[in-house]
């Protein structure tokens, strides 16, 4: 059952998934990467994503949901095109992480887990992202931005708005 007839994913992602389920000693090991990569493409884990991934691996949808609810990066609602994740854990907190978060809230006009009306940005306060020595830091999608100041955040937001932000996937 490695290939799915009416896949909801792009041909590239579907082909990647066809391969991914075969590389591990157990198919199910592909579950977490598949959920994350599906989210990267679809924007969130929809019912259709749950259903197709369950089918591809050969487990119950319930099993997929059970895993889905555990991992904090997986979401069941769409985020903005650029998901801004500001770290406020200790190293960032000591160097102004909360000020950066407040600045983002003010600048974007949204709170934690909010999405801007135009769908361009969403905002999240997140736990330690492993950039402690370059704090305060945030991630926009998967891109790290270090040594932040409110001014630097403004420049970054403008870059992303202008479609100039690089976007690793």
């Amino acid at each position, binding site marked *: 059952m490695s290939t799915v007839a009416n896949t909801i994913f792009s041909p590239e992602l579907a082909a990647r998934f066809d391969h991914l389920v075969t*590389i*591990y*000693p*157990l198919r*199910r*090991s*592909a*579950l*977490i*990467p598949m*959920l*994350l990569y599906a989210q990267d493409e679809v924007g969130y884990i929809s019912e259709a994503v749950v259903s197709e991934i369950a089918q591809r*691996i050969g487990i119950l949808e319930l099993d997929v949901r*059970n*895993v889905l609810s*555990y*991992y*904090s*990066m*997986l979401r069941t609602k769409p985020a903005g095109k650029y998901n801004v994740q500001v770290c*406020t*854990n*200790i*190293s960032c*907190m*000591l*160097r102004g992480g909360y000020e950066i978060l407040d600045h983002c809230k003010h600048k974007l006009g949204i709170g934690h887990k909010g999405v801007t009306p135009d769908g361009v940005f969403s905002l999240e306060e997140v*736990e*330690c*992202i*492993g*950039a*402690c*020595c*370059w*704090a305060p830091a945030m*991630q926009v999608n*998967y*891109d*790290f931005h*270090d040594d932040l100041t409110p001014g630097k955040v403004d420049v970054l937001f403008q870059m992303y708005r202008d479609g100039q932000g690089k976007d*690793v*996937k």
Partner: protein
Amino acid sequence: MPSLVSHPDEVKVVSRRFGMGAAEIDKYIELDGYKAVQQAIANGPAWIIDTMKASGLRGRGGAGFPTGMKWSFVPKTSEKPKYVLVNGDESEPGTCKDHVIFLHDPHAVIEGTMIAGLAIGSKMGFIYLRGEYRYLLKIVEKAVADAYAKGFLGKNIFGSGVDFDIITQTGAGAYEVGEESALMESLEGKRGVPRIKPPFPAVVGLYGGPTVINNAETIANAPHILLMGGEAYAKLGSERNGGTRLFGISGHVERPGVYELPMGYSLRKAIYEVAGGIKDGKKLKAVVPGGSSCPVLTADEIDVGLDFDQMGKAGTMLGSGGIVVLDESVSIVEFALRVISFYQHESCGWCIPCREGTDWIKKTLTRVYNGGGSKKDVDNVQYLAENMMGRTFCPLGDAAAMPTLGFVKKFRKEFEDYIEGHKAGTPIITVEQLVGAGH
């Protein structure tokens, strides 16, 4: 891109190739890359394990278990396949050392994984990176692909007759998965809930097979140790604490960064000389010495050597090497609340003492912080933390309780003064209000 730092007191072993373009395989080979694995093949498993034992290398994830001994625990013969698992889930607040290893020297992790595989007779290794490290996963994936292209991985590696494969894996956001058995669950496509021990991973691990699981920094050290010799590596460090390690110094210091220092190096010097002292000429208040789960040290407790034993004697831990420095402006009440909020968020809920303990400590400290605390709250927090210790499957419960105990014991007066100072006009918040306010 994280900036690199350096200081004359550094002894560069695992960071030797940082900033030299060693993520490219040809550069890595030019810088003595993939020589150690060939030595390992030539000399055999017993030699690898003896060399690792002689090096005195202890687990860099935080527990400090001797690596050579860990590898020697894996049974020689096994019906089920054996696995090597590299823990790059790096999630302990204050820790970003594996980040720079994956960025600057991914092949050292790959070569170390191969060496561990040869030592225990495994044919497959996994390198697991936290989900947030996508750009680093790309770097590691490319490095693995390049190693396959050169024929270093796959069938009959270096003409040894031995096959070895490496699979890279991404997490999706969970601190708990950094715990070894939870990581295995995650790699098997499940919730990252820890397993009860025994059996230990060396006997029953990933997919039920004997498994060696090591932190990425531990694994990245292996090639260097084989090349320089176990004794030479051991001599770089202090007694029973071989070698060097990466220390991520963050918080209120002038020059935060990841520095490689000999084991046993003075914590005071690490803060005041290596990292340039306290930011803006302020006074030191406290240090969290090895990631947020380590009990805090006060400003007058920092004349201690940075190794597992000396830190243990000082009543704290070397942990993950993430040294977080707090200046005089920091409110310990606020800081303690931030730390427990993290653990409350990350507790997987499997063990009740951890799930309820972290939640109630957070609620209690929240009301203290908001000015509605009573003096008894400090005792309650201590009581809750003491009753979490040692009562959970995995160390997350302890990781939440230990720093909390450190804060309330060493800064009790600050908590009491805070409660006293915020009393006027603020009614004590009731349990009913707290239960509603918790989440």
